[in-house]
């Protein structure tokens, strides 16, 4: 039913991703589908890495660790975006489309005030994409 599972990753907050990763792993086994991790960085240094190259390496290492831990194949895809504040969702969305993903697994916090006003990434993706989305809370 689903052939390829996508998971957007925030390398600065991998601790909040755990349940989403576990869910994705179960789904990957249930549907026999590989998992594509996509993370977005800016060309300038961020909290996570000093440049996009280092960012890509960190993401690859994270994917490798997850593959080992869950026994499912996680593939890493780092994307560079000039203005992640506004264009993060769009960049993720394009990446998942290019990769042929048909099911997204997205981690989200419990809804708070800010998310009502400006919508969470998860809510935005769930409302604006034409892919199936699992929002994990």
């Amino acid at each position, binding site marked *: 039913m689903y052939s390829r599972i996508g998971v957007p990753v925030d390398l600065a907050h991998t601790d909040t991703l755990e349940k989403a990763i576990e869910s994705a792993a179960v789904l990957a086994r249930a549907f026999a589908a590989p998992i594509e991790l996509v993370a977005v960085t*800016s*060309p*300038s*240094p*961020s*909290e996570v890495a*000093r*440049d996009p*190259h*280092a960012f890509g390496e960190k993401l690859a290492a994270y994917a490798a660790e997850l593959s080992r831990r869950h026994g499912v194949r996680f593939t890493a895809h780092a994307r*560079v975006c*000039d*203005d*992640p*504040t*506004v*264009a*993060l969702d769009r960049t993720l969305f394009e990446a998942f489309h290019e990769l042929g993903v048909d099911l997204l697994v997205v981690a989200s916090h419990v809804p708070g*005030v*800010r998310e009502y*006003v*400006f919508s969470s990434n998860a809510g935005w993706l769930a409302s604006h994409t034409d892919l199936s989305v699992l929002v994990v809370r």
Partner: protein
Amino acid sequence: MPNKKQAAHIDELAELARAEGLDDYTSEHRVGEDNIKTLGLDVHNPVFLISGSTIVLVVVFALALPGLAADVFGQWRVALTTQLDWFFMAVANLVLLFCLFLVLSPLGAVRLGGPDARPRYGYASWIAMLFAAGIGIGIMFYGVLEPMTHALTPPLSATGVTGAERRGLAMAATIYHWAFHPWAVYSLVGLSLAFFSFNKGLPLVMRSALYPVFGERIWGWPGHVVDVLAVFATLFGLATSLGFGAEQAAGGIAYLFGIPNANWLRVAVISLITFLALGSVLRGLDGGIKLLSELNMGAAAVLGVFVLALGPTWDILSGLVQYSGAYLRYLPELSNWVGREDDYYMHNWTTFYWAWWIAFSPFVGMFIARISSGRTVREFIVAALLAPSAIFILWMTIFGETAMNQYFLEGWQGVAKTVREFEPELSLFVFLERFPLTLLTSALGVLLVLVFFVTSMDSGSLIVDTMTAGGKIETPVGQRIFWCIFLGLLGVALMLGGGLNSLQALALASAFPFSLVMLLMMVSLYRGLRAERLLLAVAEAESEAEAELAVEGG
């Protein structure tokens, strides 16, 4: 393993690079490590609070005691432009020479963002954004006004000069202010930020450009001061621009439609600009600023071609060559401050411009840096110096030559009158009256002004947000919206309450410390680029040695 000679060479290069102290300092500081995250904000700890509260206090002061503020800040302005004329002119010359040196030296080959980086914007978009962020607005107001002004009152005490000579001097004096020098200032700041951020992994804030000078202390108070000053200059520069710009745009609208230029019209203009800028902010860099910049460059080209085709086409085209020559001929005299007697031109025009460009340089520089990853230092400087300078020379010649023709050959007083009566906001519209389709072209002019302001406010919010978030790019959207609305409110408050002049003086005042920063920046950037070059040479020598070894082994 490389052989002994090779190894010695590599060690030698690495030693040289280490001597610059620039090989591994990037790991010491993490972007955002001083940030506080609360109330949905993500901002740098002292910088956000200090700059925000100081700005509010200063504005309250200017609104509560307008007389005192005008006195105090007005004196600063006079002192700056009269006492420090030599300093600003020397710094500007030095920066331009430094940029030319970088282009010619092997350091120009260093690529921003590392050897593998590739440019993310084509030249056309890149140049369009350069204009939109910074001083594109200037071509709208000064294109007609400035050549005409200098033609009426020639600089360099050359009152006796007449005819083609006088027009050449007027154009040279205009081009001097808009070509090369300002772009060298912006290039230096942009280059420094881009290099230390993209190549050295330092956060995208002003202080990073001074790391080689201050070392780790830069994360403390020396750095805070630099960043606060940058926020200060950017916000006041933008807010006063917005205030004056709204007065001018409202003046144009009022003139065009024959309605009174009342306060409500100005507030409406600022509100409209802020509203559109918010829309642009929410669409992001590519969907907002880039798109609007390209549209505006296209629209400006239409207006330029219109005037070129319907104006004195041949005079303009031959003027291009003449006036470029005049610029080169007069440049030594114009850029030299010793023994000058044309105080009015040198203080009220040259020194004012130089201070203004320097005050705006953190904003424009950081914006250029953000869109320049992937270009080499040489490409960067050549493009940033040549392209806008060429466009300005072309534009100023089209509008200046036509305006001077209207006055000197046709004897039409229209534009000269706006200069004499100091109604600069009307120069362009009066000028366009001599052309067919006046209403259409004037409306296009108003639209261009408005859209340039929209892009300035959008990029201003973007930059101030980054500056106050410790160089973080991924900030909450609400924060950028906050700055955009803050800028709009600041503009309205200053315009209604008075104090635009006081705060413009304050923005100009920040040019002095920034000139000092700029001197240090040249040292920093030179050392940084040299170290980078050496490190690259080490890497190259290593990989060559390995390749040789592989051949020997194989």
